[in-house]
């Protein structure tokens, strides 16, 4: 179902959302300094003064993974009966304006934390089920965006409660779930007509065309992804770009789908009380796979570098039938070595051919 929201009624929309729980939104801000102005896009909680709020055209700098997997959080206190079972329900959190790539990332991580019925992660489940997802179409693309070569679109197709498309005169709301329907009923909105749907499709085509154009030279590497994934990892040729990697872990931190973690324990404040935390880890750190005696199956720098690709496009794919990458391009924007994943794949493709 598609309905229309007058642009000046976005405040009412947010007010309704605030009735459901805390609201976290993609936010855009012009930052002025003596070096000129810069547009910043980040995730920010909305509490009041949202009268001038609008949905940014492209994805935020930060990802939304902390809403399901915070960087560091307590998973147990022991010995303590209280921590053996974890309650089911959490308080609702609304994510407003998230783009297709970030929406997709949730469905990818779900596979790891929810699908194995013997080992469902209770913390992840609770957080995940508490999310209300209000997504939005991309109105443009960044240079680093490449969702299209992975077969995704720059607009959400499923998995949202409500998806928002910005049209010239309205926000078009696509309703994707019961809760989405309930939210929209609060606002008594009119059905969208053929004209508005046509305008939406036209907009979508434009952004998609732009993406296709900017990624044309890379598409052949991604077309052969499966076979590169199978073959390139055995050979070191084609991976030369990896030598610029400084193992900082920025790529995995900013990635909405990188979920690797480690558990660490601490003494509590009280006698006979200990705490266990889950913290983000990165396969790009030396200690990630290091064993007693300094043995490490990914000892060489290049093996360590390759693992990220291997995991995303081979191991994960073998297990779950999808690649573990949304094409959001955050790893490209943030790499200290200036490494572009798309170019790495072009290189790997050449390596396979050689």
């Amino acid at each position, binding site marked *: 179902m598609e309905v229309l929201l007058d642009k000046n009624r976005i405040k009412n929309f947010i007010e309704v959302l605030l009735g459901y729980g805390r609201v976290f939104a993609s936010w855009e801000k012009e930052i002025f300094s003596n070096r000129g102005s810069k547009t910043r896009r980040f995730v920010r909680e909305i509490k009041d003064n949202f009268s001038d709020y609008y949905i940014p055209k492209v994805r935020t700098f930060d990802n939304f993974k902390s809403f399901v997997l915070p960087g560091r959080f307590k*998973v*147990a206190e*022991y*010995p303590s009966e209280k*921590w*053996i*079972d*974890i*309650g*089911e329900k959490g308080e609702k959190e609304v994510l407003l304006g998230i783009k297709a790539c970030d929406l997709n990332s949730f469905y990818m991580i779900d596979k*790891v*934390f929810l699908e*194995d019925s*013997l*080992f*469902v*992660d*209770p913390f992840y*489940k*609770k957080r995940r089920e508490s999310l209300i997802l209000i997504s939005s179409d991309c109105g443009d693309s960044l240079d680093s965006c490449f969702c299209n070569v992975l077969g995704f679109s720059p607009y959400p197709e499923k998995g949202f409660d409500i998806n928002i498309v910005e049209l010239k005169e309205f926000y078009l709301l696509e309703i994707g779930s019961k809760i989405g329907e309930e939210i929209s009923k609060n606002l008594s909105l009119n059905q969208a007509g053929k004209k508005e749907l046509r305008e939406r499709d036209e907009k979508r085509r434009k952004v998609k065309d732009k993406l296709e154009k900017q990624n044309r030279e890379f598409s052949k590497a991604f077309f052969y992804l499966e076979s590169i994934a199978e073959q390139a*990892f*055995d050979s070191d040729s084609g991976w030369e770009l990896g030598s610029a990697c400084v193992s900082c872990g920025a790529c995995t931190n900013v990635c909405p789908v990188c*979920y*690797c*973690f*480690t*558990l*660490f*324990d*601490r*003494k*509590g404040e009280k006698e006979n009380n*200990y705490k*266990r935390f*889950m913290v983000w*880890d990165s*396969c790009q750190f030396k200690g*990630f*796979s*290091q*064993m*007693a*005696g300094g*043995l*490490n*199956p*990914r*000892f060489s720098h290049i*093996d360590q570098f390759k693992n990220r690709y291997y*995991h995303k496009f*081979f*191991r994960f794919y*073998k*297990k779950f039938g999808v690649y573990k990458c949304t094409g959001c391009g955050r790893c490209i924007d943030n790499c200290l070595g200036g490494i572009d994943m798309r170019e790495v794949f072009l290189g790997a493709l050449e390596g396979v051919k050689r």
Partner: protein
Amino acid sequence: MENIYYPHKGVVKEIKEETPKIKTYRLKLDKKLSFRAGQFMQLTVPGVGEAPFTPSSSPGEVEEMEITIMRTGRVTSVLHKEVKVGDFLGLRGPFGKGYPIEKFIGKEILIVGGGVGLAPLRSLIYALFDRIEEIKQIYICYGAKSPEDQCFKDEYKDWERKKKVSLNLTIDESHPKWKGTVGLVTCLLEKDYLKKIGIDIKNSYVVSCGPDVMLKFVTFKLLEVGFKPEQIYLSMNRRMSCGFGKCARCNIGPYYLCKDGPDMCYADIKDYPNVFC
């Protein structure tokens, strides 16, 4: 919903010094627990951390469990130095698949261990003893640095006395107190030696556990004397944290050792990069 990260209590009932660097801890469990031979536990030293260990006791025991641990790094050092009888440790698990014992029925089993690697194999040995009627023959080949470094010494006599069991020991270098075979464990896998003990290579499976280098040379030796990759099961070593396929560090190719292993059929892993470190 059950918290999969919570360590259940195991109170230390007894500590036995096997060698200067290896101790066996007998734990009384607060929650009954059954495992298959080869499955492993994440053991917590409270406030210090977790490390993976495969129980060395019989899978038939559900209220108590033995874990045999070598001192190597952070967690194991604190364990050896500070943990006393009466203290509690944490346990999560069991994790992993365990040995495919059903496959071993009607076959000869060659068990190859090195150092503390005999610990997980001991639980397999007990499991096989329980079904000895269905097994054709068990050959145990075990190598240690010196006689002082041998685990479970006081059980060798019992093992040897069992029917269908052949125990073969070696130490790395000659030693005044040792009259038996001298050499790395692979010397027990030479063609002549296997012929002497009478193993029927075609009708057997091999199970091996030990340090990474040992596994590597054992595997190459086994292939050289005529075993097929399909007949070889190796307890592979990888760093672990979660134990259930989520933290993503314990892999060989597409496999997670904590879910698909830790014992892997060599045929399944041999074509992937960096099988041995």
